[in-house]
């Protein structure tokens, strides 16, 4: 900063601006810390029927969702309690004319400012979680190419030259299985070769469109073994409801055994 050309008042001004910037930073850091601690602290709370998320990314989404539900409870009550009170208390008893209240600036400012603060907080935590959920690793442990088509899925492990694909359509389908190693990060490359599909794993708290002409990338880091159902979430025509698949999460050693047993370009489940 060029202090030699600035006078006393200007120097005061710069320090004030500096303080403002600092304060802004502090406020931002505080909000971030509060946000993340609330997100992390949500572990022991009820699940509210939300899937806990069988991946690291899904678990973050779960905690965010929990936080939203928790904040929604006082918001809901702030409407329902006065509403219930008004219904019970101000029921007509006679033909009298009540006081004709037109407005009240303090009340109006209150119910404008508080919601703004709430959504500002929700936005900060949303962006934090969103960045984690959408982050794509530069060096994933595994890459899988997924293609949606009417009406099925193709899973291709490019490093191993192994492909799994839905066989048959409409009632007699053999659904393909996507096998993923537990605790390792897999980058999925998703696209479609006909219409829009939705690659949706409810237990992973995640879905993404398979769009023709668009390459979508996202990471899964499964945190538990098991078999999870996958579905097409976006209407894609006649047999949309039968466009199912499964995701099987196994330990890394089991994964290596499994992948080595697959002959190249195997198709079917």
């Amino acid at each position, binding site marked *: 900063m060029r202090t030699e050309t600035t006078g006393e008042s200007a120097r005061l001004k710069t320090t004030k601006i500096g303080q403002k910037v600092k304060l802004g930073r502090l406020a931002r850091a505080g909000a971030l810390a509060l946000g993340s601690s609330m997100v992390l602290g949500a572990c022991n709370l009820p699940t509210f029927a939300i899937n806990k998320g069988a991946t690291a990314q899904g678990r973050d989404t779960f905690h965010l969702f929990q936080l939203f539900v928790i904040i*929604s409870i006082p918001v*809901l009550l702030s409407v*329902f309690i006065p*509403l219930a009170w008004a219904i019970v208390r*101000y029921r007509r008893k006679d033909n009298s004319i009540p006081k004709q209240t037109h407005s009240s600036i303090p009340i109006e400012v209150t119910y404008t400012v508080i919601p703004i603060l709430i959504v500002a907080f929700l936005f900060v935590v*949303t962006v934090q979680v969103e960045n984690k*959920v959408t982050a794509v690793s530069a060096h994933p442990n595994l890459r899988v190419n997924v293609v949606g088509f009417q009406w099925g899925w193709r899973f291709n492990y490019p490093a191993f030259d192994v492909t799994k694909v839905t066989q048959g359509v409409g009632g007699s389908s053999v659904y393909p299985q996507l096998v993923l190693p537990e605790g390792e990060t897999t980058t999925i490359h998703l696209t479609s070769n006909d219409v829009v599909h939705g690659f949706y794993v409810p237990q992973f708290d995640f879905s993404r469109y398979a769009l023709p002409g668009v390459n979508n990338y996202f990471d899964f880091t499964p945190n538990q073994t098991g078999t999870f159902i996958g579905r097409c979430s976006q209407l894609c025509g006649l047999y949309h409801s039968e466009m199912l698949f499964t995701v099987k999460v196994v330990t890394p050693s089991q994964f290596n055994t499994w992948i080595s047993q697959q002959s190249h370009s195997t198709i079917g489940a």
Partner: protein
Amino acid sequence: MTIAPERLEELGPHQGHHGPEPTGIFKWLTSTDHKVIGKNYMYTSLVFFFIGGLMAELIRTQLFAPNNHVVSPQTYNELFTIHGSIMLFIFAGPFVFGGFANFLVPLQIGAPDMAFPRLNALSYWLFLTGSITMLLGFLTASGAAAFGWVAYAPLSDATYSPGAGPDLWIVSVALVGFSGIFTAVNLVTTIFYLRAPGLTMFRMPVFTWNMLVTGILILISFPVLTAALIMLYADRHFGTHIFSVRGGGVPVLWQNLFWFFGHPEVYILALPYFGIVSEVLPVFSKKPVFGYKGLVFATLAIAGLSTGVWAHHMFTTGTVLLPFFSALSLLIAVPTGIKIFTWIGTIWRGNLDFKTPLVFAIGFIIAFTMGGITGVMLASPPIDFYTHDTYFVVAHFHQVLFGSAVFAGFAGFYYWYPKLTGRMYREGLGKLHFWLTFIGFNVTFLPQYLLGLRGMPRRIAEYGPSDGFTFLNEVSTVGAYITAIAFVVFLYNFWVSWRRPIPAGDNPWDGHTLEWATSSPPPSHNFHKLPPIRSLRPTWDMNHPEHADWKYHQEEIKKRERTSQGVSHEN
């Protein structure tokens, strides 16, 4: 400031008469009277509400049990496509914007008719033609459109959806869209140019304000839809490749165009119903609406924000800037919240007369608050990744839209029924209608939130017995049947009051606004006399001179003058 003496302003007789008025079917066919056209809109859209409702019952019947085959998957896809299209394009919008707005806006602003009566008639006939076209798809060999009401490309192109059904859908939506655009032009012009002397912008009833803002939103968004429909039609028939990858087109462009229309459309459907609630609550509380100007600015803020949130329908495409659309979508909760709190402020310390319109209006607040809160959750992209295209979203938008169009819609219908017909409905049947609707609605849609969280995608024709969806779907279907019974009660109420009429009188509710200052039903050209308009509530001022709003406003002005002069008087 001098105050005019209390008098009713005499209006001169209407000039240039056109001979005897036609009656019966000819009146209905040839009228350019905004009241007749408004009623035509209302009754037509209610018939389509009934048809769309029957489709919903079929959809729910199919989902009652796993692997159910009441209808084939093809028919199922057609049913939810046409159900959604009817409910949004033909019922929820035209019921209020063609129906209530047409009937009420000229009355509320003291005008003899709309600015362009013949354009108004053209709007109605386009609407009726478009609505019938929507159903014609079922008569074609390949069936009706089956790509959902959003018609995502490339599913909606000629390769994946061949046949005449989808073309009829495109034509139908375009016709209904033009009807909406014409009505919007008409309403906006009417509101700007035909207000009675003294009726300034800030003395306009909230309902009229909301119609003005809705009209402007329609003018912003509907032409985009019409353009997109023409592009889709060109892709299907003229060999263009706007939305197909093979010809170098961009499928996501359809989603952007559609939702650039589609999200303002959500508020085009909601704002008029907010307006109805803002009329009903003050009258049945015997109080003015609380925070009127705040309410008007909230409406404007919602309209402004609603043009910048369309991509929150596209969070899972991976092609949009998440934080921007998330921020604006979250922010829209603020003006919406302001509205809800002004409604509570309106009934607070009122003298609440629990007639059917008030009960429906409160049902609306309950439904809309719940749907609004889950809407805030959906504005957060990670939560949307999980719940997008599941029954969570289905539950959310039914709470919001069913909450608006049905609860607030019927609140308005019962409230203005005396003005529409000159007759009174039966209060007991009205209450029964409410309770059946309220129970049926919640039993139908609350379980769908849980279904969504468990991972049930929307628009699936069937699910498996091991999916864990069965019980909640059964509950939801029972709720849908209860809602259907509620509609039968409504029809019966309508029929009874038609066959054995009870005269309602001109102002049965002690109404506040100008439509209650004329006869029920109003005469041709609406008013023989207008009360002086010195506030938001001219009819109230006329009937309650001791509590008149203009007195309150004068006191306010005096107070302000005193403080600005620096003189403090303690009264």
